[in-house]
């Protein structure tokens, strides 16, 4: 029994490290490419999809991924062509995804906060399975490989999209790639903090790293490290005080960001 608990904790710890790393890494590109509004809509798209999975007794990961991808593929071109401000798109898509999520959760076989519904809402890292870890590890390797190979283009787009185009880089596919990757990473990290809070993990580590560092390569290394540290710290706090893991992770990561904001040399100069 002790061994079983130890295995659960090992899985939880490993999941925290992997998801914290991935969210921190992708978050840098989402923040620097000013895709925060799209990332926000998409992470709640993953939440709505996972809720559909619960309602239809199918795999919430698959439906979450489907919804996140659909949101990404719809919002990317709409943002480009519809001449709508990103805030406007978020204001429409975010409530829609939340409404769909709650409708799906109401339609779930056991109405009310069944364990699966609760998992989707707040996350349940304790319920991480070996399969979840395999998915996260595969995603970890694939994401690092993709970022390595297209780093040059991403770096130029993060600096200035128009200049990147002027230098002959086709920026659209790379932006869609980041939106899609963010959707996949969010979906596979849903069990960590749940659909309502997941967005904080995409945004907080990158924003924290940006307060201190003036070198993009250093930021891309620091943000995943901050992501891993805050998720593991949140897990420890939750175990220590017997509180929900997801909430503790988000609270810790927000406190770290607030401290970074106060101590930021960039702000002190002003």
């Amino acid at each position, binding site marked *: 029994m002790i061994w079983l608990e130890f295995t659960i904790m090992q899985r939880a710890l490993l999941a925290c490290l992997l998801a914290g790393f991935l969210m921190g890494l992708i978050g840098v590109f989402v923040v620097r490419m000013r895709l925060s509004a799209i990332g926000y809509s998409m992470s709640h798209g993953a939440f709505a999809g996972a809720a559909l999975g619960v309602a239809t007794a199918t795999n919430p990961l698959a439906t979450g991924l489907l919804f996140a991808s659909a949101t990404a593929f719809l919002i990317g071109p709409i943002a480009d062509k519809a*001449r709508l401000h990103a805030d406007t798109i978020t204001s429409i898509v975010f409530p829609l995804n939340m409404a769909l999520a709650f409708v799906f959760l109401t339609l779930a076989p056991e109405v009310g906060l069944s364990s699966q519904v609760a998992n989707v809402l707040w996350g349940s890292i304790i319920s991480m399975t070996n399969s979840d870890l395999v998915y996260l590890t595969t995603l970890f390797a694939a994401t690092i490989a993709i970022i390595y*190979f*297209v780093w*040059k*283009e991403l*770096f*130029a787009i993060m*600096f*200035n999209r*128009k*200049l*990147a*185009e*002027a*230098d*002959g*880089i*086709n920026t659209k596919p790379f932006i869609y790639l980041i939106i899609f990757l963010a959707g996949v990473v969010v979906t596979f990290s849903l069990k960590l903090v749940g659909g309502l809070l997941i967005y904080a993990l995409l945004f907080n580590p990158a924003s924290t790293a*940006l307060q201190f*560092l*003036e*070198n*993009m390569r*250093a*930021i891309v290394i620091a943000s995943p490290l901050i992501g891993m540290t805050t998720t593991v710290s949140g897990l420890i706090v939750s175990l220590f005080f017997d509180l929900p893991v997801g909430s503790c992770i988000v609270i810790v990561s927000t406190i770290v960001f607030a401290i970074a904001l106060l101590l930021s040399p*960039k702000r002190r*100069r002003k």
Partner: protein
Amino acid sequence: MREDAVIKLEDVSTVYEGERRPAIKGVNLTLKRNELVYVVGPNASGKTTLLETINGLLPTFKGKVSVFGLDMQSHGRKVRCKIGYVPQDFMVKPGEPYTALDVVLMGLYGQIGFLHQPEEKDRKKALEAMKLLGVEELVNRPMGKLSGGQQQKVMLARAIAKKPKVLLLDEPFSNLDPESRAKIPSLISRLHEEKELTTLIVTHDIHHMIDQCHRVVAISNGKIVFDGKPENAIPFIENHPHTTSLEAIR
């Protein structure tokens, strides 16, 4: 100067998204190889639009833009790898995580190509261009901490590092100090001659390189109102009906 057309605009009109009135309309313009042309005009006359239309960054509403004989709407990215471009009033904010060398090296990314990493030779190209512009000591300085003039020189180095065939420069001397204003135009002119470039410079101040340029094109309200020799440009501007609106370029 050779006679081959490098840049050719045929009845080109460009309309910005969400607007009805074209920013440039019915523009016909040809730049031959190794020609250095000044584009002058008052604020909002369409100078920057013209440059961005040539570069294929703005889609044309009507007409055709070709560079090296290739249509910019369909071959824009390939052609842009050979174009050195300095945008107007480009300033990096303090705290932005890019060094001056990063910014110059990035200009080469299109040439380096997808899935290829920058090599030592690319770094050398970037450093050479920075040395030429006198900003080699700024290599590792954060771009956002540089003065307006230093940033403008870094942007010029970025354009030159590509070893371009065409230079499109939008107000490239506006933030330079008086000493650099005397030096940099001569450097551009020398590069233009040595490398047989085709150069289009948008400027408010016609006097910077008036001796070195081959032609002056004046734009007013999105239309070309003068296209001729530099020595005729100033008298034209003085006598043209749009003198009031063109006052700014004198």
